[in-house]
């Protein structure tokens, strides 16, 4: 049992034994004098506070951009943290900084450090490419109000072509330093500020939650962070599970795709895309790159939000939820977890251990559609995910129509599914299912969309699903207006 958290801040090893569970990384950094990291929104949307977190993944050091404003300091345990002050300086600019100067990527300059950090992470990412859509995705968590982004994208392209800088060269020595921080110990800190627990295993977590059933479980903090920064809520006891090895399991085997509670959207994206390409594409539109680097699928489930994008996409895929209390484990269909608004099927001391997507039936046709005011980094007005299996006679054998944003919980359109199952998959059935959808849901009017829009679009998405099942291949895409699906 260790009673401190440890991480590298640039070159310096930081060890903290008197840290509050709700201490945000941004406030801590700025208090430390690292004022290059800015507060723009304090809710993980604008990216002015973007920093880079380096971690050991296997034997490799992986750099990820995250939002410092909604990272809680204990989450940094075992990592190396880099801020704008670490990557380059006036006499020795990093290639990203050099390109941003040369190509006029900064105007007011306030968002710039955050952009630079996202760009540094992307320059070192496995998926880096100079494709516009890939760069858009890498920069999806950084808002700029001055430049219109064009010069920043140009700078990104120029920086991708540059050779390694001293910052990157120094990374080679980082693996051993991070390795030395991995002691396999639980971390527990109890101070007047509150209690912090970082489990080294799922069993440790299970035990701790039984002893302290009032514990708040935090993985990526992309939701809980806002409880702190916006609602000013106190967090007296928190278990930070984001780096718990057992919970980081991501595997595909005969039982399907297993996604542990600490697996981030970023980490799961490739596996999901391999299983269901449309789900993979959807993940690319959930939150932003820094959010996906922190947020977990299981956190998106566990918090019970009616507007999370993951749950409907998973429900349509027939996902099963794995819950655990002590040694006691149970598995339920995901949709049964959501009992009512703000109420989930989770007992005191129980936690979400994983979600699994069982092997898909042969011939299943799966699509997911996200509708929001803005393409990237927006909360859906409607999220629809559909899975359909039609037999050789054209009769629907299986239909799962899942929606987010349409009701108080993510849920299936039971009446519309009823219309489809056993019916011939043609336009008359589609029309009947569209009508049934109106009975399935009574959506809300809010700032994202009216009830009318939600209802109309939900039905129209069923139309799109039908047309795509009939061979329609053109779909609107950010990269040039049209794309083939």
């Amino acid at each position, binding site marked *: 049992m260790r009673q401190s958290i440890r991480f590298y801040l640039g070159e310096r090893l930081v060890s903290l034994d008197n840290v509050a569970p709700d201490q945000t990384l941004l406030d801590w950094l700025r208090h430390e004098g690292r004022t290059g990291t800015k507060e*723009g929104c304090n809710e993980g949307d604008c990216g002015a506070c973007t920093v880079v977190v380096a971690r050991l993944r296997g034997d490799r050091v992986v750099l990820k951009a995250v939002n410092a404003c909604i990272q809680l300091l204990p989450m940094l345990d075992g990592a190396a943290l880099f801020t704008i002050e670490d990557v380059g300086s006036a006499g020795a600019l990093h290639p990203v900084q050099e390109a941003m100067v040369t190509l006029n990527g900064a105007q007011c300059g306030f968002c710039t450090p955050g952009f630079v950090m996202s760009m540094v992470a992307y320059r070192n990412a496995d998926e880096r490419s100079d494709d516009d859509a890939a760069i858009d995705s890498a920069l999806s968590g950084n808002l700029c109000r001055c430049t219109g982004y*064009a010069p920043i994208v140009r700078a990104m392209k120029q920086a991708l072509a540059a050779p390694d800088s001293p910052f990157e060269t120094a990374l080679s020595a980082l693996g051993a330093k991070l390795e030395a921080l991995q002691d396999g110990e639980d971390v527990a800190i109890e101070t007047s500020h509150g209690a912090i627990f970082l489990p080294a295993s799922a069993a440790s977590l299970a035990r701790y939650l039984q002893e302290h059933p009032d514990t708040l479980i935090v993985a990526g903090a992309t939701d809980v962070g806002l409880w702190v920064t916006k609602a000013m809520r106190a967090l007296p006891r928190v278990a930070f599970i984001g780096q718990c090895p057992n919970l980081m399991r991501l595997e595909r085997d005969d039982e399907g795709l297993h996604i542990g509670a600490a697996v981030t959207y970023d980490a799961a994206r490739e596996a999901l895309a391999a299983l269901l390409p449309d789900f993979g594409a959807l993940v690319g539109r959930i939150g932003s790159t820094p959010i996906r680097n922190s947020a977990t699928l299981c956190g998106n489930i566990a918090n019970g939000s009616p507007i999370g994008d993951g749950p409907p996409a998973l429900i349509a895929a027939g996902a099963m939820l794995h819950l655990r209390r002590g040694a006691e484990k149970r598995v339920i269909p995901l949709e049964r977890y959501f009992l009512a608004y703000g109420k989930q099927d989770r007992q005191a001391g129980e936690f979400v251990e994983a979600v699994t997507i069982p092997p898909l039936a042969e011939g299943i046709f799966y699509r997911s559609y996200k*509708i929001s005011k803005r393409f990237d980094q927006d909360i859906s007005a409607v999220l629809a995910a559909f899975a359909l299996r039609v037999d050789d006679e054209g009769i629907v054998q299986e239909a799962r129509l899942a929606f987010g944003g349409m009701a108080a919980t993510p849920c299936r359109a039971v009446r519309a599914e009823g219309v489809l199952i056993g019916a011939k998959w043609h336009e008359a059935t589609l029309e009947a299912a569209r009508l049934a959808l109106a009975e399935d849901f009574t959506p809300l009017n809010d700032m994202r969309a009216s009830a009318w829009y939600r209802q*109309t679009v939900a039905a129209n998405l069923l139309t*799109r699903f039908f047309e795509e099942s009939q061979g329609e291949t053109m779909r609107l895409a950010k990269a040039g207006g049209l794309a083939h699906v």
Partner: protein
Amino acid sequence: MSDTIASPVAPDGLSPSASAEPTRNMKHESAVLHVTGRALYIDDLPEPKGLLHVVPGLSEKAHARIVSIDLAAVRALPGVVRVLTAQDIPGENQTSPVHANDEPLLAQDLVQHVGQPIFAVVATERAIARRAVKLARIVYEELPAILDIDSAKANGSAVVWRPLTMARGDVEPALAKAPRRLQGTLTIGGQEHFYLEGQVALAQPGEAGEMRLWSSTQHPSETQHLVASVLGLPHHLVTTEIRRMGGGFGGKESQANGCACLAALAASLTGQAAKMRLDRDDDMVITGKRHDFKVAYDVGFTDQGDILAVDMELAARCGWSADLSGPVTDRALFHADNAYFYPDVRFRSLALKTNTQSNTAFRGFGGPQGIIAAERLIEEIAHATGMDPLDVRLRNVYGTGERDVTPYHMVVEDSITDLVMTQLAERCDYRRRRQALRDFNSTSRTLRKGIALVPVKFGISFTATHYNQAGALVHVYTDGSVQVNHGGTEMGQGLHTKMVQIVRHEFALPAESVRITATTTGKVPNTSATAASSGADLNGMAVLDAVSQIKGRMVAFAAEKWQVPPEQIAFTQEGVRIGDEIVSFRDLVWQVYFARISLSASGFYKTPKISWDAATGRGRPFYYFAYGAACAEVTLDLLTGENTIDRVDILHDAGESLNPAIDIGQIEGAFVQGAGWLTTEELVWDGQGRLRTHAPSTYKIPACSDRPRIFNVTLLEDAPNREATIYRSKAVGEPPLCHGVAVLHALSDAIASLDAYRSCPSLDAPATPETLLRTIMRVQERARRSDGASV
């Protein structure tokens, strides 16, 4: 470019040839500081000892009498040092920037919008102050609240500013006689500035009542004056300083004053330094935004698409106080012609009072809303006549020597709109692409494409004539280094860079020799806001004046000492050429100093030629116009209303650009900001007047992937300003925002395809996916009905 713009240039030393490399290519003076995180914004400054933090407590009601305020629990929270209320204000509880006396700093008996500050907590930590404000118990007696334009008009149309009428000719008979006539209404949404750096101010008390402020303000002098007024001090005890803002866009012209005044009040009452930095949600709930408008129009025209008469009322939601709504609604009228000649015309403004945030300056200042109104008329006429909207535009643009008088009786002396549109249409292959996408639309079931080419003509000068003045202060030190200061503020637009360029160019100095310092009321007093795109025009000439004075003294000294005529003395990159001799700048400076001649000068400038009389609606409010045109192509999803901006081409007139890279950056950024305003940026209030889109999670400014996939921005070449502006450049801050209008029209064009382009879709802004889907379904229904009728 082969077609050059004929534009006579007066021999006044300001000819474009005076502008030279390499200063034109200078990077932003803070670029390296920006990218390394070493550029200091106000919240980054080292904090003074004992710094206190101020957080405001806000009204929860849109319109109510305050019955009682119980702050006992607020005061009791450990760490709370003091709570500020209206009673604590030693001077005037008043912050109206236009002396309308309608904007108390802290509400006393009456609250007029949700988010109006009632009190402020001063605490040792910001987090404590944020928690403390939630402990207040305020009892309200609610009053009827007017939240939007329609309810304001239905309830007597109370205004915050006098209506303005502009008229020329006799509009009613002209409309009656017109062969064709159409009426309609148009709704244009507001816009949150979303400067990345929120409102912030730091106040430090000094000796003998002095108060020093660091305020993220576009208008340091106004901040100084209001702080002085709130504290009951003369102006000379208050100094306001700002090195740079993290974005402004008009949102820190008057809206910065609240933080500055409350921080100063806290500092004054406690004797300790105090900082007020708003949380983003508070910032969006408290501060004003771009005005939303509702326009009612009546247009008469011919079958050939010639506009004969226009009658329009432009009504704006102004919020609870006047703020800058008067000049904003005026400027909407000044631009409701955009680039078109209306033979008989009448415009009326209506600055409606509502129980919402007090709307304020935002890049364009009402002008873009006027332009959208003008462009709706073009669209109506195009659909009514079956013409290409571009042809309707070309037929109606201002002429030269005829058809050249605006609705405010100013002669347009240099209309180049037709040339700009024609050049752009050729460059971007508008006509062929328009046909190609119509072919696409004829076979596409669920996706439609649209295109539009829209011009902008934007009037440059503050319409409040007295604002068109500026000062500068230039010091040459004995080592040959130069410090320049001026009345303008840097918010990312590159103003400081351009000012450094002028000094460098005049003295022929390298970048490291010229240092620009923070804007401060202690160096240049009585300044105007950095607004109305005027920063470089006004301050650049003031800097030039200061530099010219010093140069004049140096030349006179050298002429006498070396006994050469002054015309044989020139400042070159090699040094100062005096006859046949080259003397280094530094050596000459030293000799001038030694001769006891001043190396410091204060410069001044006022814009010539302008005048404006609102009472008669006549004058020459603008020194000149800036022109441009944008062509946008979009794809629209008919099932959802989602869309993409596929290609944008812009040709823009920056005169003889002071810094082409900075100006192109302004144009690119302004376009995206304008497109965002008209598409994804939607402000939503609920029935209680609470703003529901009060953070970036709910208010969606463009993200990286929203930029046009193909984005070509070009400056109009060989187009020096006809007027004697600094090196014949043109202002570039606001005009290009209007290029976003092309996106609205391209979306409308895509929808019009559903009715075979027979009717105007009447697409309102913002064209969110929801608004688009509603409009799509309305036009589809109209097409079904008219097809049914024609069968």
